[in-house]
């Protein structure tokens, strides 16, 4: 490919260790102007570490980086940024209380004499956003923006710094399909203007659409680099996992007749209106809809995390409203979509996270630490949580293992009904399959599961019945063979179209 000659940024034989643990074993990688080079691999394969090394956030333990053919070392990320190397993080680096314009120009404010030149900055910010087809006011505060718009601001910020190399860490993880389309168009445009782009995503169809070349990492090792043309999604998945992935989705369990959850006319002020549905024993019920359709809010209203009106009955008994504890005691638990901010205490160890929801099972006066320890051993085994060290903080686990820990934590409460919101967000395909198997096994054991997901294949593959939400109410229900991406989207958009353009 002759990449070594024309590459802006290349890395040779990169090795990186964290203490005694080696996470990268001699990885080569290069970025060429006007090309999108995708880096794919399972969670824990070393993608994040590799990206951080390329972006100047981490130094390699061994190996060499070359910028424009010259060996370089970045002492910190600022230095890399000064050379036009920019990284867009999965977790945004935006100051929530500042405005869009202030964020875009943070650290390189335009001056007019001793004062800030607000007008110039606003104009430039607006121009950058228009380029991205993103119509937010530069004066609005980040905290008031939706997640996709924040993503666009993050990209605008990179563009404003004249990025020659753009490193994008799963930029579409939080975007809807339509927003993803816009983003991919922007990437196309950036590529044409000669920017070198590193792109990662767990969505292999995106990789197919956008990448010129693909590099696969597995367990910190470089598996292959090849042209994207002719590289099928199946072949990518096989290369990532290192084995054939048989059917991603397990067989759908057959629900029994008993109704375990009955929701009647549930409303969450400003978010959900008049939602009613039932869930049967042994059923996997899907909830689909566009981002902002009110699915999460409905579920949080049901379990008492949000003020809600309406009736909820679990196993025939009315549920005390507004109490997560009452819901848990009735056998109803909710697994949040936001595992980093609402699911796990990232700074605490695995045990304290595992037992937090069901702590009363480990003693009402004195906590039985040996029982807790045994519970962790069981959880690590049952959920296949890959830990380096049982005393490690939950935040040091990879995303997939965090999700497994969160699942284990939730299941420790021995629920009858589990609501799982975005069960596989930001998780690699191997772990996804494990979680799908787990959900199906749960239903087969007579538990009931609600799966809320923005990934349509997931809803379709797991659920025997799908409820579609749009604009805060239930837009329709599909079951059996009637479930298809097309039918779901039509229901979701049918009423949601105006909102989308707003």
């Amino acid at each position: 490919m002759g990449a070594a000659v024309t590459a802006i940024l290349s890395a040779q034989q990169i090795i990186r260790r964290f203490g005694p643990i080696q996470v990268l074993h001699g990885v080569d990688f290069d970025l060429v102007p006007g090309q999108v080079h995708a880096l794919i691999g399972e969670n824990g394969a070393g993608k994040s570490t590799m990206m951080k090394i390329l972006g100047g956030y981490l130094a390699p333990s061994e190996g060499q980086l070359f910028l424009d053919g010259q060996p370089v070392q970045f002492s910190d990320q600022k230095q890399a940024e000064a050379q036009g190397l920019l990284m867009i993080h999965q977790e945004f680096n935006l100051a929530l209380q500042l405005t869009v314009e202030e964020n875009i120009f943070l650290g390189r404010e335009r001056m007019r004499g001793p004062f800030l030149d607000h007008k110039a900055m606003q104009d430039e910010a607006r121009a950058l956003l228009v380029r991205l087809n993103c119509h937010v006011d530069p004066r609005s505060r980040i905290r008031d923006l939706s997640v996709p718009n924040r993503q666009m601001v993050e990209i605008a910020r990179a563009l404003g710094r004249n990025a020659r190399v753009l490193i994008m860490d799963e930029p579409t993880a939080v975007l809807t399909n339509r927003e993803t389309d816009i983003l991919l168009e922007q990437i196309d445009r950036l590529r044409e203007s000669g920017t070198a782009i590193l792109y990662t995503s767990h969505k292999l169809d995106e990789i197919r659409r956008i990448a010129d070349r693909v590099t696969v990492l597995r367990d910190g090792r470089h598996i292959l680099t090849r042209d994207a043309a002719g590289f099928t999604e199946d072949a990518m998945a096989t290369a990532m996992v290192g084995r054939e992935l048989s059917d991603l989705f397990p067989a759908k369990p057959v629900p029994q007749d008993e109704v375990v959850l009955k929701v009647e006319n549930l409303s969450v002020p400003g978010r959900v209106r008049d939602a009613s549905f039932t869930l049967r024993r042994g059923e996997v019920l899907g909830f689909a809809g566009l981002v902002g359709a009110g699915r999460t809010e409905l579920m949080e209203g049901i379990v008492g995390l949000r003020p809600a009106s309406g009736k909820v009955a679990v196993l025939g008994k009315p549920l005390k409203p507004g109490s997560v504890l009452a819901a848990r005691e009735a056998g109803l638990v909710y697994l949040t979509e936001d595992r980093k901010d609402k699911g796990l205490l990232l700074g605490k160890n695995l045990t304290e996270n595992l037992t937090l929801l069901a702590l009363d099972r480990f003693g009402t006066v004195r906590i039985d630490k040996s029982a807790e320890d045994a519970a962790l051993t069981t959880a690590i085994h049952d959920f296949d949580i890959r830990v380096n060290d049982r005393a490690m903080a939950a935040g040091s686990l990879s995303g997939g293992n965090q999700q497994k820990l969160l699942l284990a934590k939730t299941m420790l409460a021995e629920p009858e009904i589990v609501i799982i919101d975005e069960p596989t967000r930001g998780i690699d395909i191997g772990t996804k399959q494990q979680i799908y198997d787990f959900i199906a096994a749960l239903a087969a054991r007579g538990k009931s599961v609600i799966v809320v997901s923005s990934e349509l294949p997931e809803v379709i593959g797991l659920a025997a019945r799908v409820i579609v939400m749009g604009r805060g109410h239930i837009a329709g229900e599909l079951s059996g063979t009637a479930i298809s991406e097309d039918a779901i989207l039509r229901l979701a958009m049918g009423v949601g179209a105006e909102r989308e353009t707003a």
Partner: protein
Amino acid sequence: MSDTTASAAPPRRRLNLHVLGPVLALVALIVLGASLNANFLGYGNVTNVLARSAFIGIIAVGMTFVITAGGIDLSVGSMAAFVAGVMIMAMNAMIPTLGVGVPLILAGMCVALLAGLAAGLLNGFLISKVGIEAFIVTLGSMGIYRSLVTWLADGGTLSLDFAARGFYRPVYYDGLLGVSWPIIVFAIVAVLGELTMRHTPFGRHCAALGANEQVAKYSAVKVDRVRMGTYVLLGMLVGLATIMYVPRLGSASGSTGTLWELEAIAAVIIGGTVLKGGFGRVWGTVVGVLILSLIDNILNLASIVSPYLNGAIQGVIVILAVVLQREGKSAD
């Protein structure tokens, strides 16, 4: 997948510095004190230091829970003065009916505990139910209690009836097997506090709440109740500290308990509890309290440095403690 054996080494090494810091400082102070003055380790001095530490110490144990749960309470010094004032007035008022004797003392203790509980409940209610920031609420109540006690004392001093004072004195000055009561009570509070923090759901919930309130809420922790609980616990411990304090002087005034809140917070921080919440250590707080009172004691015993510099040295220790903790963290 049970790699228990291979695991514990790396984090333990980090813990050591972190954990041992305050203990080493305390040992160093004791060695220093002993080498400067022969009487330092004598029975009289040790009892004196510990008994004086007891008031701040009992309060600081409660403060550890408040701070661990992500809160702060600036009102405890004023609260102690207010509770002492109320207790003294109530006891004086009850002498005609109860006479001077054990029932009067017990009634006075109940009043102190109830007053502390009510004060803590009010702070906790405003913070967790009304949702005002802890700093603001307790800054406000700090002023309110201080002003109330000054008003009750009419700008002067509220004194316990002379006979009752004589009867109550032994609660501060006497003890069991040569250990005075304040020390015994402080020790019991410290042990119970440590057990509560480390081995009960309440302690675990405090740490969870301080680490991330959202996660606690989503994990079915009754966030409001736990937060309220920390302030009520602290209020009652202020009441308990006051019970031990009143027999010492038998009076309360507008200047009683001045700056106790800052000393208590300083002791908590020196002990290794994280000011932002999420991690608390009661035994560390006890060490912190002892460090602060030993500095004071050593300066008074040895005439190398002026005792007037006490505050400056304590200030340096607080800042140093936090710096050391931070280095412990970034090393991992």
